[in-house]
């Protein structure tokens, strides 16, 4: 990952707002991060954007969040729609403006300014607006005000100089009252807003953009100006979904992720063994390979294994429909539907062309928010390159990984590659584990090989394995590496058979030898017994001879003594005479 010094600086300063400048949180996910805490408190912020860019919604989120979460009631002044219409429009986003008004947390002043109805003749001022606004602010104790869209006033009154003067007065007046305000403005052709109000109205300018490229639309937000505060200057993608405004909590450029020692097995024993027990929790794995190498199946295994442990899993599909994947996984013995039914697995599928890269990213961020998965499998990330350049896709995948890693989610992404392993995608530095599946063609058949190209923090196996998909699942088989190269499939089977034969021959020879030796041993043991017997017999004989000799000697001594006694020999008895 390339992190420039500027990015790091941005990331650091974002987190530390300058002293003295108080901020009012917007409650919009992501925006508060970019601005280092929210909009300048007690100042006016201009939100500029073309029609449908989401200006009104941003303003409303600011008010609703203020009222509900930050104890700051607000006033909405709208010049475009009736109160009923505004209320109806945002009800689908879960904003109940009626309830907020009943609770005294929100006041709505709606003016339908019809340009055809008004004629300006001479000087005027917006005193009634000031009076009503003042009234409303006091009534609800407002700390926040949104004026939507002031550009309408220019068109309606047709006296730009007066309207501009009054808007400046309004901005100063709001600041004087200490309320934090958002003024929305229509995007102009050359300037940020049609009537150039960014020049004088605000301390903070946020531009919303709705761009279409290659027929794919992407919404972006950018903080153009923030007086007295550091802010992220990038364009940040955002999403308007059923849950409102959502700015991507970016490219947090700081490489800080939760780190785990725990291993997550993929559920394929031999592969887990090759990886030293599985993937590290919170790490990112990439599976690349050409078409039909079984990338999705690997992902399916991880999903299944995680769900079996009772973990929540997000499966994002960029190539196939959920039904198709479910069916295909069933064919290798994986029933993923039961995990969906059990509420553990959330499958989300979208055509890559359905929206821009950033939108995909924002959707993913939202899904992470909703599902809170511990494992995420992104299938077919390379397909996202539809209508985008390689670097853009790499950037996108990078941000996706960042997002997931920051949330401590274990990631497995699969990407189609066209044979050449290293150019698969310029994303290898983002992934901790890189598995490559490869088709090898040999003897008229294609077989799959699995390599572990990289596995950070792991003494991983450098072995190639054959990757076999069966009705019962994935099996990894040793391949044969010989002079003819790596043998797989039938060639491997043939080699296995040949080796078995060779082993058989060898075994026979050994057996014969063993039998022979055995026989010898038996014989020698028998011999040993015979010799021992002989030895014993001879020892016994020696003993007998000794005994006899001693007996004879004793007898002859006695005879001699007896004889001497008879002769009256003078030698003392027993003192030893002649022998």
């Amino acid at each position, binding site marked *: 990952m390339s992190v420039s010094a500027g990015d790091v600086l941005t990331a650091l300063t974002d987190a530390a707002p300058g002293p003295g400048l108080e901020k009012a949180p917007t409650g919009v996910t992501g925006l508060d991060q970019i601005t280092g805490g929210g909009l300048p408190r007690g100042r006016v912020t201009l939100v500029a954007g073309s029609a449908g860019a989401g200006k009104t919604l941003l303003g409303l989120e600011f008010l609703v969040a203020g009222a509900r979460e930050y104890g700051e009631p607000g006033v909405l002044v709208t*010049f475009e729609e009736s109160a009923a219409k505004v209320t109806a429009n945002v009800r689908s986003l879960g904003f109940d403006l009626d309830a907020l008004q009943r609770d005294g947390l929100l006041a709505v002043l709606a*003016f*339908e*300014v019809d340009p055809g*109805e*008004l*004629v*300006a*003749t*001479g*000087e*005027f*001022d*917006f*005193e*009634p*607006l000031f*009076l*009503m606004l*003042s*009234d409303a602010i006091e009534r609800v104790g407002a700390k926040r005000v949104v004026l939507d869209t002031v550009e309408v*006033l220019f068109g309606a*009154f047709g*006296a730009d100089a007066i309207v501009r003067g*009054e808007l400046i007065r309004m901005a100063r007046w709001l600041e004087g009252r200490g309320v934090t305000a958002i003024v929305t403005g229509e995007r102009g052709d050359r300037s940020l807003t049609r009537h150039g109000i960014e020049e004088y109205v605000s301390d903070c300018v946020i531009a919303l953009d709705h761009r279409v490229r290659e027929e794919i639309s992407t919404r972006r937000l950018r903080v153009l100006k923030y007086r007295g505060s550091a802010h992220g200057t990038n364009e940040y993608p955002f999403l308007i979904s059923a849950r409102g405004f959502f700015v991507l909590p970016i490219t947090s450029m700081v490489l800080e992720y939760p780190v785990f020692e725990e291993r997550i097995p993929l559920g394929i024993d031999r592969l887990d063994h090759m990886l030293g027990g599985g993937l590290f929790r919170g790490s990112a794995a990439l599976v690349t390979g050409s078409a039909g190498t079984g990338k999705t199946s690997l992902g399916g295994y991880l999903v299944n294994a995680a769900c079996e442990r009772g973990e929540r899993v997000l499966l994002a599909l960029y190539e196939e429909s959920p039904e198709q994947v479910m069916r295909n996984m069933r064919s290798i013995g994986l029933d993923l539907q039961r995990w969906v039914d059990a509420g553990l697995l959330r499958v989300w599928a979208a055509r890559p062309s359905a929206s821009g890269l950033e939108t995909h990213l924002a959707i993913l961020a939202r899904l992470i928010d909703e599902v809170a998965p511990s494992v995420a499998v992104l299938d077919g990330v390379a397909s996202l390159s539809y209508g985008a350049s390689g670097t853009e896709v790499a950037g996108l995948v990078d941000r996706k990984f960042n997002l997931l890693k920051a949330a401590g989610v274990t990631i497995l992404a699969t990407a189609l590659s066209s044979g050449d392993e290293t150019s698969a995608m310029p994303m290898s530095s983002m992934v901790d584990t890189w598995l490559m599946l490869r088709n090898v063609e040999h003897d008229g058949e294609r077989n799959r090989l699995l390599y572990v190209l990289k596995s950070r923090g792991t003494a991983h196996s450098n072995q190639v394995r054959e990757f076999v998909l069966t009705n019962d699942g994935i099996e990894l088989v040793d391949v044969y590496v010989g002079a003819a190269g790596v043998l797989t499939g039938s060639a491997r089977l043939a080699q296995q058979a040949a080796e078995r034969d060779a082993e058989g021959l060898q075994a026979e020879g050994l057996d014969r030898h063993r039998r022979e030796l055995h026989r010898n041993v038996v014989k020698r043991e028998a011999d040993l017994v015979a010799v021992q017997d002989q030895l014993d017999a001879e020892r016994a004989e020696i003993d007998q001879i000794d005994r006899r000799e001693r007996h004879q000697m004793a007898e002859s001594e006695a005879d001699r003594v007896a004889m001497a006694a008879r002769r009256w020999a003078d030698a003392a008895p027993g003192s030893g005479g002649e022998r």
Partner: protein
Amino acid sequence: MSRPGSGDDGTVTDPEETWDLRLYVTGRSPKCLRAIENLRRACAEHLAGHYSIEIVDLVENPSLGAADQILAVPTVVRKLPAPIRKLVGDLSDTDRLLLGLELRPPEVPRHDR
């Protein structure tokens, strides 16, 4: 069509018809005072006896302007005859005042109106 009234310049006034005008002001600012004066003079000139002017001061009750969607002052609203017309400003531009309240027919079209 020729009608009685003060109109020698083709002012359209029905003897039965009353012009119901409402002028919104805030306090006694110079702009508002000028507007009151300008409106009274124009009406006296063109609608003698056939008009009523109601002056509403929003300082006392800002919400009174809500019904007529009053954002700016001075604003004169022609309640009758229909359709409702709104003029914003101190009414110092007499031509636009007459045109805006349709006290005088537009000059450009030559045929009937």
